[in-house]
């Protein structure tokens, strides 16, 4: 894993700037994934993750698992962001100010692969936890017990979330192979 290779560099007294440069794109990629391709959400999540990293950098720099820490924090930040999205205040804000996601220009959307758009739509239709669990399982290839550990959930609950997500996706015409 690319992260593992970078960790060795970090362990030898790298600055925050170095760690940020090394992980910036990866964290943004994870954030895009768990936010189902919403750029502004992904940016917010990445911003908050790196702020946390800055706060805890002294302690984390000594550890060899900065990459793993970033991964876990990104997943949890994405979940918190999604939860906040559903709050009453956020709904009122959206009602008056519309969707925040400006994203690239509209013509760019047209150029996007049709399939990507369909996947984004299917992912956004899933409840927050199910969406993140599906991504962890389908993209990161994590086992259910690893997902449970990352999200601080029980393994049984993760299994239930996955099953529900599969059902929902199947209803939309997607086949989810184990």
């Amino acid at each position, binding site marked *: 894993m690319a992260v593992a290779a970078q960790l060795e560099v970090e362990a030898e007294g790298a600055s925050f700037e170095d760690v*940020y440069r090394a992980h*910036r*794109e990866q964290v*943004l*990629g994870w954030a*895009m*994934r768990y936010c189902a*391709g919403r*750029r502004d959400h*992904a*940016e917010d999540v*990445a*911003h908050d993750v*790196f*702020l946390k990293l*800055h706060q805890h950098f002294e302690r984390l720099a000594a550890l060899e698992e900065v990459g793993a820490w970033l991964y876990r924090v990104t997943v949890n930040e994405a979940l918190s962001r999604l939860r906040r999205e559903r709050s009453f205040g956020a709904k009122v804000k959206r009602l008056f100010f519309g969707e925040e996601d400006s994203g*690239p220009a509209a013509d760019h959307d047209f150029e*996007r*692969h049709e*399939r*990507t758009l*369909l*996947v*984004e739509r*299917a*992912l956004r239709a899933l409840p927050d936890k199910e969406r993140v669990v*599906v*991504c962890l399982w*389908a*993209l990161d290839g994590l086992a259910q017990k690893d997902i449970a550990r990352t999200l601080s959930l029980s393994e049984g609950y993760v299994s239930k979330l996955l099953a529900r997500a599969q059902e929902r*996706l199947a209803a939309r*015409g*997607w*086949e*989810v*192979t184990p």
Partner: protein
Amino acid sequence: MTRDFRQALRDADAAWAGEVPGPLTTRLDARLRDSLKPRRRLRWSDVGLVAGGAVVGALLVVTLYRPVPGAVVDEPVRPGGFEVSATAKAPAVTVTRDEVRVDEELELYDAPRQLRVTASAGTTLKREAKGVRLVKGQGVFQVAKQPGRPEPVRVLVSGGAIEVRGTRFTVTQEPDGPGHVTLEEGAIDFRFPSGRVKAVLPGETVHWPEEPEELAPLPVLPLPPPSPPVGPKPVSSRSAAAANWTEFDRRLRSEVVLKRVMALRQQARWPECVEELERALELPDGAYGPGTRERLSWELGSVLTWPLHDAPAACWHWTIHLKTYPRGRYSLEAARAREALECAR
């Protein structure tokens, strides 16, 4: 047709990852740089500065408002508006904001009211919004004539207020008890708490608390002579008289009766008040202005109910009242009174 979600998700992930380098990364750089910009932290020196400022402020407040104990300095002081006359020789005075306690005879001046008072030893004076209050002791008051002043200057005492428009008088007040005022020159009015105003003549002394004053007798309205019976139906002399009362008579009678009742109520002369009301209610309908009879009936019920607690009489009265004025102005009060008295239905 089913589609492989896992494969599609991987493709989408690759597409998302392709979007990351570029504006998204640049924006994140800028935001983080802004968020991590070092901000000035609060230092102990800042805390010290603020605390020092607070102490200086507090000292200023204390210096400006602290009581002035013991002897007063040569210059006139203005504690809460009172000035100590410059001619006074180092008097002993204790001042707490608007209250002055004089230990030796002292001349004080209240500039806004142009009121000068020579206060005897042991006198306490207080400035209030309505006037200068003589809490206890004795003072010779002198008020300059102020032609443009809309309100008279008031010297407040436990038993009322002395209203002055430029004159000299002596007031004596026992602590929270009786007192008297003697007018030396000019003219003053003494306003009792009941609202009665007594005009005081020079050399006259008025005492308080107020003695219950004998009520003026009800003015007897000239009743026109009974008219001779006309037609087959005999008319009672009272009704006939009522028919001839003018509107002026009715209003005057209403006013006088209500004034008498109010005066009796204020002096808590309840049995007399009941008698007065019963006598007033015996007069025929045309004797009063509109609404007066209902008001009198309500007054009678109230007196029987609350101060006298005469439940049988009150219940009986409220029943009659509610029958006479079923949707009257006091129906709600009447119903409440009946409820409080637990009157039988």
